């Protein structure tokens, strides 16, 4: 029986394993050094905040794996010998495979800051990171202030987490506005205000120079690059992005760049070795997507595709319309299609914001054809299926604005804002014509 070995039990690896089991009777082994069972990485924040216990982050009960004949191995792969198709573990154990799927995810970026390896300095990615956070920032007495470095999705989550335990947070953001490498100005500015409304000490256009040690190997302050200001703190969160977690592949014949290089079939340069999820890097980027996509949804999609290929229906990774979501404190964010920070050439943005400053949308569209290209929506839930269809049908922005009510996904009895949005759109058009 063919033995499929998957390194990594995150969403990519687990999706692959589940779908291979649905499609075949192959022997499946799922390897992880992080946790015995699959959990939802995106939910770690809610464990620290006390919304859930760690058990609740596990999407399948523990009996699921045995019932579905997916073998679990707790171990850390030290290297891969592709000639003999053998994995070597740090504890000296070995395992042979017929086909190997690398799904090892990401690790937090560190950019060589002085003091970045001190105790109390960490990212937030793994279960181990969460455990360390409980040691260094369990409450506001032990952690009198925390500094978060890096204004992305993990940075704002970590800020919200610490804030939930009343720990004062200084949030250092390199950019002039939160996440403005992705969000347009109006959207980003609203999130800046949301952060400040939660009493976060948000410092825009601010870089970290170094992390200061207390002399016992633990961080006790950071120094700001621009001003030289020293901010005393007991915890430093490094959340300046993630990169593929593939150090163990160094010295193997598997070709890597930033991530494990794969073609559209998610095949590496070595036969029978595949890579999916955060750790995979497309040799050529697909559309507007980045070559390395560290997103939950794309990891899951690659897992679905690789299972088809492994089970004899060779298939390209061919993602549909881009979508993503996040939550910034109390404001939910969803995006469908492509909205860039500044409209691409020949494109325009339509921006609408509610007076309460917690809801807004930005639509990108083609200035000459009026084709709808993408939407960012904050504080108003919208339907994935409807936007996916409108993008496929290449509807115009006029059509989208007129039918926006069809896409509304807010709970029943909520106030609707489509009328307001339609009026704002009309006004903007008139202003453009003037």
């Amino acid at each position: 029986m063919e033995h499929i070995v998957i390194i990594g039990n995150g969403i990519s690896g687990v999706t692959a394993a589940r779908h291979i089991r649905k499609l075949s009777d192959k022997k499946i082994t799922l390897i992880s050094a992080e946790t015995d069972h699959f959990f939802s990485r995106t939910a770690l924040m809610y464990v620290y905040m006390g919304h859930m216990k760690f058990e609740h982050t596990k999407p399948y009960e523990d009996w699921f794996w045995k019932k579905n004949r997916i073998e679990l191995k707790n171990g850390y792969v030290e290297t891969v010998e592709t000639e003999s198709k053998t994995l070597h573990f740090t504890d000296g154990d070995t395992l042979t495979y017929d086909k190997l799927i690398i799904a090892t995810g990401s690790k937090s970026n560190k950019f060589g800051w002085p003091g970045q390896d001190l105790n109390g300095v960490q990212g937030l990615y793994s279960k181990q990171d969460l455990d360390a956070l409980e040691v260094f920032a369990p409450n506001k007495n032990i952690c009198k202030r925390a500094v978060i470095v890096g204004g992305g999705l993990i940075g704002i989550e970590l800020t919200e987490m610490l804030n939930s335990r009343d720990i004062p947070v200084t949030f250092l953001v390199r950019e002039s506005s939160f996440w403005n490498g992705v969000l347009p100005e109006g959207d980003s500015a609203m999130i800046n205000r949301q952060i400040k409304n939660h009493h976060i000490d948000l410092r825009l256009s601010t870089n970290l120079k170094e992390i200061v040690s207390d002399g016992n190997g633990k961080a006790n302050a950071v120094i700001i690059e621009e001003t030289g200001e020293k901010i005393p703190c007991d915890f430093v969160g490094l959340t300046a992005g993630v990169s593929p977690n593939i150090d163990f592949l160094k010295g193997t014949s598997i070709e890597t760049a930033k991530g494990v290089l794969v073609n559209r079939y998610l095949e590496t340069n070595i036969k029978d070795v595949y890579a999916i999820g955060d750790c995979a890097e497309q040799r050529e980027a697909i559309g507007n997507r980045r070559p390395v996509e560290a997103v939950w949804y794309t990891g899951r999609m690659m897992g679905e595709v690789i299972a088809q290929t492994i089970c004899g229906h060779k298939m390209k990774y061919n993602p549909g319309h881009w979508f993503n979501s996040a939550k910034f404190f109390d404001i939910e964010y969803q995006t469908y299609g492509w909205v860039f920070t500044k409209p691409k050439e020949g494109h325009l943005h339509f921006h609408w914001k509610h007076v309460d400053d917690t809801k807004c949308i930005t639509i990108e569209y083609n200035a000459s054809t009026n084709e709808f290209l993408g939407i960012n929506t904050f504080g108003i839930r919208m339907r994935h299926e409807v936007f996916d269809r409108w993008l496929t049908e290449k509807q115009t922005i006029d059509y989208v604005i007129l039918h926006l009510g069809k896409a509304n996904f807010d709970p029943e009895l909520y106030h609707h804002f489509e009328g307001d949005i339609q009026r704002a759109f009309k006004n903007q058009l008139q202003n453009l014509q003037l």
Partner: protein
Amino acid sequence: MSNKLNYSMSLAKPDAKDFSLKQKVAIGIGIIGLFILVLALFNADINHSGWVLTTALGLIVLGTIWFSNSVYLSESKGIKNDGVWFKSISSRGLIGWATGIVLTLFYIVLYFYPHLLGLGKDGAPNTGLVALFDPLSQLLSGRPASQWFVYGALYTMAILVFGYKFFLKYRHNRYEQIRTGSVMFFQLAFAFLIPEFMYVMNSDLPYYDLKSIWPLNYYLFDSWSIKGFLSAGTIGLILLIFGVVSIFIITPILTYKYGKRWYCSWVCGCGGLAETAGDPFRHLSSKKLSSWKLERWLIHAVLVFSVVMTMATIYSFLGNNPDSYWLTKSLFIKLSIGFLSLIFLLFMLFKRKEFGKDAKNASIGYAVVISLVLIMHFTGTTDQIFFIKSSSLRSAYGLYIGSIFSGVIGTGFYPIFGSRVWCRFGCPMAAILGLQQRLLSKFRITTNGGQCISCGNCSTYCEMGIDVRAYAQKGENIVRSSCVGCGICSAVCPRGVLKLENDGLKGRINPTEILLGNDVNLMDLVNQNN
């Protein structure tokens, strides 16, 4: 595993999330109010004029309102579940257990030893806690209080003050606010005030909470109840007809249009308490597959029990002679079997597909009811059914289901098993509405394409123990008989994936293998293969 306890060896509470001074004072005020009730319970020599009661209840209300204001109004609008699993009361800690035990003891005393609460025996004046409530009862209906009046008043107060708290907690969510307004209204007006006023108008009427529908209201067809209605003249007859109409006409229509939520989380008193006072415990329900299996057996067994018990009760006071009353024992049996068979056949004919694997279980349930009814008919005597005294079946149901299951376990165990134990495992009304919701209703919870991140907030906060995530992460609508439509899964979802909706029957149950986001051919391929 509590993350907190693993690392801190401190004896002092290590959490930063503690009560503020203001919140502690508010809790103190509420406890003083409760303490006055306890003093009354132990027959302390306190003045039983209305002022003491007003003060006690007033302090409880004031404390809760002040506490809620302090907790929620100072914070931004949004989900307020920070620290839920760290607090002793809401994570089965010492305070949680203590609360559970006190509540359970209260229910045992209430149901089985009401004289301990001060109920006067054989017309003797009330003492203790019951006497404390006499002035309020006199004011409303001009008669002394009973233990049920005390219970009803406290119950209503709990729904009102904790409803207010819930209102503030979800002040960003209009669905939750309007729904909570509805349960507060129905409890205050229909369960508490109207029955008292009805008594004032016509003292022959039995206590009748208009919104309490058979089989939840299992005593509706008791002979004392029927006699009470019939002896109260036209108004009694109208009420009895309304009771029957609400079972066979109003309930099916509303459930078809809105799902069982119109009742379970908008109208029902049990649901009302669970959604307000029980809200801090909703996440304690078990999400295990094994619990779901237990739930399905238990709730349907109770349904069978209640149907048979009700039929036996009616049967026992019918006669055999068609000349004295048109509805005889044998005609009643024929009509009942005919009606049940008709419903069963219609569902099997038109809803066979939706039943799926459960068709067998449904057939077993049907067969059990019919055979029990036939056994009853052919072995029963004038005062015996199933070879026991005909009234014992009814008493057994009242004791084990009506009192112990719904009261003692259902509410007393809130802090241990969560707030909907009765609704999930025992309520026969929920079972009937659930069957209809699963098979013949426009209601479903829609999932939003591929946006689910499997975080588990929805499942954790489902009071009915539904593993909502299991559906959401597959992009599959949630069509479950137990869903009471409280809307909290949708509220706590951080990615806007869930929406309660009423829509057409087509495509309501939509199992899929591949989620939206991947290329369309792959979705087609995989979904067709299944």
